[in-house]
C-alpha cells in the first residue's frame, strides 16, 4: 500500500523529524511504502503529483496547521498529534491502511469510485508549472476567504442595520453614540471595510508565502499594499504576489557569507525583496495593471440582461463540473476576486456562484430521499449528510455520487447548477460574503429569488439524475441479476 504523511510541530526542529522517522520505520516494518513531507524548518519537499495520485491514504501528524491541505481532499485521512506518531507510529500506519481499505464503498462500484477519484486527482495535479501556479494562487485565495467572509458579513450587517447610506456615515472615531443604532451600523460597516482593505495585501502576501515561505511574506504584503495604492486591485495583488514569491525564491539560492547567513531570512530577503517589488509595483507595472483592472470593472458593470444570465449559467456549469476541483475553484476564485472591485455585478456573480455551488449536494440529497431504491445504503447515508453540506455551500458533498457514477451524475448536476446560476442572476440576488450558504441568506439581496433559484436547480438536477439512473437500472436489470452495486460499475465501464 502506498501511504503519504505530513508531520509538523510548533518549532519545526524536533518532533517533525522524529515523527517522520518513526512513521517511515513503522511503514517499512509493516511492508508499506510511505513518503513523508516534513513541514519543518529544514525546508520541506512537497509531494509530487504522481505521489499524490498514487497514494492510498494519508496521515496528518501535526500540532500546527498542515500547509496546503487541499492537496489531500481525495485521500482517506488519519489525523493525529505529532507525538502520537512518534510513540504510536505502527498504530497510525494500521489506521491509515484500514482507512484506505474502508474508503472504496465495497466491491466493483468501489473500485470504480476509486478510479474516478484517482482520475480527478491526476487532473488536479496536471502539468508541472500550471499546477504549481494554481497551487500558489489557491493558497493565496484560501487565506483571503476568511477576510472576505468576515469583512463582507460585517459590511452586509452594517447595511442591514443602517440602510444603504451607511457607507457615507462619518468615521466612528469622530462620532460614536452608544445608544444610536446608526453608530453601531457605521461601526460594523467601517470594520468590514477595513477588513476588505486587507484583501489584496493578504492575497499577495500569501501567494508569495506559498512560493518562498516566510521571507517572501513582507515583499508580498507590501507589494499588495502598493497594488491598492495605485488602484491595480486584485490583479495587481496577483502580480505582486507572484513576483515577490519568485524574486525571494531566487534570492534564497544565493550563497550568503557566513556572517550574514543568519539574518538573510529575517532581514536581508524581506528588505531587498520589498524594495524591489515595491519599486516595480509603483513605477513599472502598477499603471498598466490599474488600467486592466478598470477595464475589467467597467466590463463587469456593463454586463446586464441576457449577458449576465449567460454568465450565471456558465459559472453554474463550472461550479458543478468537478465539485471542488480546479474548474469549480476557478469559477469561485473569479467571484471572490470580483468582491474586491466593489462593483454591483460582482455581488451578483458571487450570489450566483454560491447558489450554483449549493445545488449539487442538495439535488443528490433530494434524489436519494425520493427514490431510495436507486441508491445503495452508503449513498443514502451520504444523501442525508448532503442536505447540510449543500445548505452550507460545500459542493464537495456531491463528490461521492459523482465518483461512483460520473457519466450520469455530473451532467445532471451541471444542468441544475446552470439553471440556478442563471436564475440567481435574473432575479438580481446579490451577496457580499464569499461563503456561508443558507446561513447568510438573510443578508442576501432579494433572498426570496435566491431561494427560488436554488430550489429550481435542485429540482432540475434531482429529476435528471433520477431519470438517468432509472433508465440505466432497468436495462441492467433486464440483462442480468447481479448484486445491487454492479449496475453502476458496469455502466461506468
Amino acid at each position, binding site marked *: 500500500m502506498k501511504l503519504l504523511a505530513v508531520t509538523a510541530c510548533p518549532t519545526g526542529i524536533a*518532533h517533525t523529524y522524529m515523527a517522520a522517522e518513526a512513521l517511515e520505520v513503522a511503514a517499512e516494518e509493516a511492508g508499506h511504502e510511505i513518503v513523508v513531507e516534513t513541514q519543518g524548518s529544514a525546508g520541506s519537499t512537497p509531494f509530487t503529483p504522481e505521489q499524490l495520485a498514487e497514494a492510498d491514504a494519508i496521515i496528518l501528524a501535526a500540532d500546527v496547521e498542515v500547509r496546503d491541505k487541499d492537496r489531500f481532499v481525495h485521500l482517506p485521512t488519519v489525523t493525529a498529534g505529532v507525538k502520537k506518531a512518534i510513540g504510536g507510529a505502527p498504530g497510525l500506519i494500521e489506521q491509515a491502511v484500514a482507512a484506505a481499505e474502508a474508503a472504496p464503498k465495497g466491491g466493483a462500484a468501489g473500485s470504480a469510485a476509486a478510479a474516478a477519484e484517482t482520475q480527478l486527482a491526476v487532473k488536479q495535479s496536471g502539468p508541472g508549472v500550471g499546477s504549481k501556479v494554481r497551487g500558489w494562487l489557491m493558497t493565496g485565495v484560501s487565506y483571503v476567504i476568511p477576510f472576505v467572509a468576515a469583512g463582507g458579513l460585517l459590511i452586509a450587517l452594517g447595511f442591514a442595520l443602517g440602510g444603504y447610506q451607511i457607507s457615507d456615515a462619518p468615521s466612528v472615531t469622530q462620532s460614536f453614540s452608544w445608544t444610536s443604532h446608526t453608530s453601531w451600523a457605521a461601526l460594523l460597516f467601517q470594520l468590514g471595510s477595513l477588513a476588505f482593505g486587507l484583501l489584496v495585501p493578504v492575497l499577495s502576501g500569501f501567494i508569495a508565502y506559498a512560493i518562498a515561505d516566510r521571507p517572501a511574506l513582507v515583499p508580498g504584503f507590501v507589494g499588495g499594499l502598493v497594488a491598492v495604492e495605485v488602484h491595480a486591485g486584485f490583479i495587481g495583488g496577483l502580480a505582486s504576489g507572484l513576483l515577490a514569491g519568485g524574486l525571494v525564491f531566487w534570492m534564497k539560492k544565493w550563497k550568503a557569507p557566513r556572517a550574514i547567513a543568519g539574518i538573510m531570512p529575517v532581514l536581508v530577503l524581506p528588505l531587498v525583496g520589498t524594495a524591489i517589488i515595491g519599486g516595480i509595483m509603483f513605477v513599472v507595472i502598477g499603471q498598466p495593471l490599474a488600467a486592466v483592472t478598470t477595464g475589467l470593472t467597467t466590463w463587469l458593470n456593463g454586463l446586464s440582461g441576457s449577458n449576465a444570465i449567460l454568465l450565471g449559467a456558465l459559472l453554474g456549469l463550472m461550479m458543478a463540473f468537478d465539485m471542488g476541483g480546479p474548474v469549480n475553484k476557478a469559477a469561485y476564485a473569479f467571484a471572490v476576486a470580483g468582491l474586491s472591485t466593489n462593483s454591483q455585478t460582482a455581488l451578483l456573480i458571487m450570489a450566483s456562484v454560491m447558489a450554483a455551488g449549493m445545488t449539487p449536494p442538495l439535488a443528490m440529497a433530494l434524489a436519494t430521499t425520493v427514490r431510495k431504491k436507486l441508491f445503495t445504503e452508503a449513498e443514502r447515508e451520504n444523501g442525508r449528510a448532503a442536505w447540510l453540506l449543500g445548505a452550507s455551500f460545500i459542493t464537495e458533498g456531491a463528490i461521492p455520487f459523482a465518483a461512483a457514477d460520473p457519466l450520469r451524475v455530473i451532467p445532471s448536476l451541471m444542468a441544475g447548477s446552470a439553471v440556478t446560476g442563471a436564475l440567481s442572476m435574473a432575479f438580481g440576488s446579490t451577496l457580499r460574503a464569499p461563503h456561508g450558504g443558507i446561513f447568510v441568506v438573510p443578508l442576501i439581496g432579494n433572498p426570496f429569488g435566491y431561494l427560488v433559484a436554488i430550489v429550481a436547480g435542485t429540482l432540475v438536477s434531482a429529476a435528471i439524475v433520477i431519470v438517468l439512473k432509472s433508465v440505466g437500472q432497468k436495462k441492467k436489470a433486464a440483462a442480468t441479476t447481479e448484486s445491487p452495486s454492479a449496475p453502476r460499475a458496469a455502466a461506468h465501464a
Partner: protein
Amino acid sequence: MTEQSALITADLVDLDLPSANRRAAVGALAERLQKAGRVTDLTQFLADIEAREQQMPTGLEGGIGIPHCRSAAVTVPSLAFGRSTAGVDFGAEDGPARLVFMIAAPEGGDTDHMTVLAALARRLVRKAFKDELLGATDPGHVAEYIRKEVGA
C-alpha cells in the same frame, strides 16, 4: 574552527545530569552552552526553552526529553546532551527521561544547520542510537558518536 562550531562537543555532554527536577536539568545543560559561548543571554535562553515547554511538554515515550527552542540568545546551532540515572520528568506519559537532548537553534537559522538538527531528531527514535548513549562512559566519545550519526 570545526571543533568549536560542531553541533556537539565533549564539554556539552553531561553524563550525570542533576535530576532533582526539570529546571535543574535544563539549567545545567544551558550553562554548559553558555560556557561554550553558544548562548549569550542565559536568562533569555531559559525563558525561550520554558516557553516551548509550556506549549507542550517535550518528553517522549522511551525515556527521552528534548527541551528545545529557537532563540535570539543562541549563536550557533547546538546540542547539549545529558544522561540521568534517576530520570527527570519531562512530561512524557510513560515516565521520566533518562536521555535529555537540549537543542538550541538560533533565530532564523539557515537550512543547512536545520538539516543537521532534523537528522538528529530522526536518530532519536532509533533504538540502537539510544542504547549506545545509555551505555556510553566517555563524554568525548558521546559527542563524536552523535556527530558521526547526524553527519555534522
